[in-house]
């Protein structure tokens, strides 16, 4: 694990990982002693399509600076087609968040299989770097609640 340098901005990254591929991929990167940043908080879901758009918004609301969703490669979903639905939903949702002014580099979908420990680590490193460059997320705040 990397030791965080306190002076530098450290983004909070939430990674939703499906149980059957990506979570196992994360495990593998651990057993292979590959490094990925401690900024990444993994939430395990049964299938990538379990992720309701509300989960993503909640993650941002609770302070995430970036949200990434990982699932089995298209065609390999444990439940046959879950990730195909995920793909459409997240494409539209991320496009909407972009439309509302959340920078598009704060959201991502990545397909990571159980054998791709190295890809998992590389993806997380790269994503964390990208979010770090953007700085803290601007909240979808209500102007009436803004502290003067």
């Amino acid at each position: 694990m990397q030791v965080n340098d306190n002076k530098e901005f450290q983004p909070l990254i939430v990674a939703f990982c499906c149980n059957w591929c990506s979570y196992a991929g994360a495990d593998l990167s651990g057993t292979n002693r590959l490094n990925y940043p401690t900024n990444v908080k993994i939430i395990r879901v049964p299938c990538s399509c379990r992720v309701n758009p509300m989960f993503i918004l909640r993650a941002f609301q609770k302070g995430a600076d970036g949200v990434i969703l990982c699932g089995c490669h298209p065609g390999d979903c444990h439940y046959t087609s879950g990730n195909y639905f995920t793909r459409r939903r997240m494409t539209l949702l991320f496009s909407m968040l972009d439309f509302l002014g959340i920078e598009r580099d704060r959201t991502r979908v990545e397909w990571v299989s159980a054998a791709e420990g190295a890809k998992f680590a590389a993806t997380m490193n790269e994503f964390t770097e990208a979010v770090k460059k953007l700085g803290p997320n601007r909240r979808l705040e209500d102007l009436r609640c803004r502290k003067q």
Partner: protein
Amino acid sequence: MQEAMINKAKQLLADGTVSRVIGWKRGEFAYDITPAVFETAEELEKDFVFDDFTSANVSKYLVKESKKEGKVLVFLKPCDTYSLNQLTKEHRVDRDNIYVVGIPGGPKLDIEKIKAKGITGITSVKNDNFTLKIETLYGEETMPFYEAVLDKCASCKSKKHVTYDELIGEDGDTLESNRFDMVEQLENMTSQERYDFWRSELSKCIRCNACRNVCPACTCENCVFDNPASGIDNKAPADSFEENMFHIIRAFHVAGRCTDCGECSRVCPQHIPLHLLNRKFIKDINSLYGEYQAGADTTSRAPLTDYTADDCEASIVHERGVE
């Protein structure tokens, strides 16, 4: 037109085809036209109104009305028939229990646009060859008809009825609409500009829920926003995120189901351009998954309940457009 509609309704009531009629009647002011149910010829003669302010889409009332005893007659404008199709497709109404009389669409008038000219105390508005003659407590005013047209009518997508049992008047065609222009304008802004635009718009919301209540796609018996355990049920904006959540989630729930009837924006007391959210989804769906208009038919599969193995990846959002 009002005359012909009342006669049609009376005839269908008299011969027993239908047992009640969904139409409109006048509210407190001359321009307040609200949906109403009529059961007798007398009621129709007394209260039934159809004029330039009759813009409410009554298709959602069929969710309840079509499940009652006896057939219900409903007058639908072209845009409203899309909503009925969508409700039929989602098994929310009993189409066999509905008798649809298609009526011509707008353009309808927006009283707010008249008031915005500083005209107050309005007692009646007449369309005289596309000049509005407005009677007020302080005398008569005039303004051009087209300056007072409802936004949703100004970007009408279709004058064609997609479902009906009978028509009064001629049927029209689907139109080349300019409805995505504003969405495009926003897309071409920087993300900071878009952020600022939506901050100021969404921060006006008072969570009256009118947009959800009027929406013909929002017919869930248990809406997530009525669930006190969700943390986002109806309440005053106490937290800085709730209204945003509400709008994004509601728009997402109706993605691929929104018939673009424009009712949500029309009823919003805070004039938030909600249709821009829905149209953004429609525009994305059209460009990514093929042209699709919810309500155009009752059989096609909705884009979010469908997929193909070679759909684009979510990264397409990152690859296109300006920052």
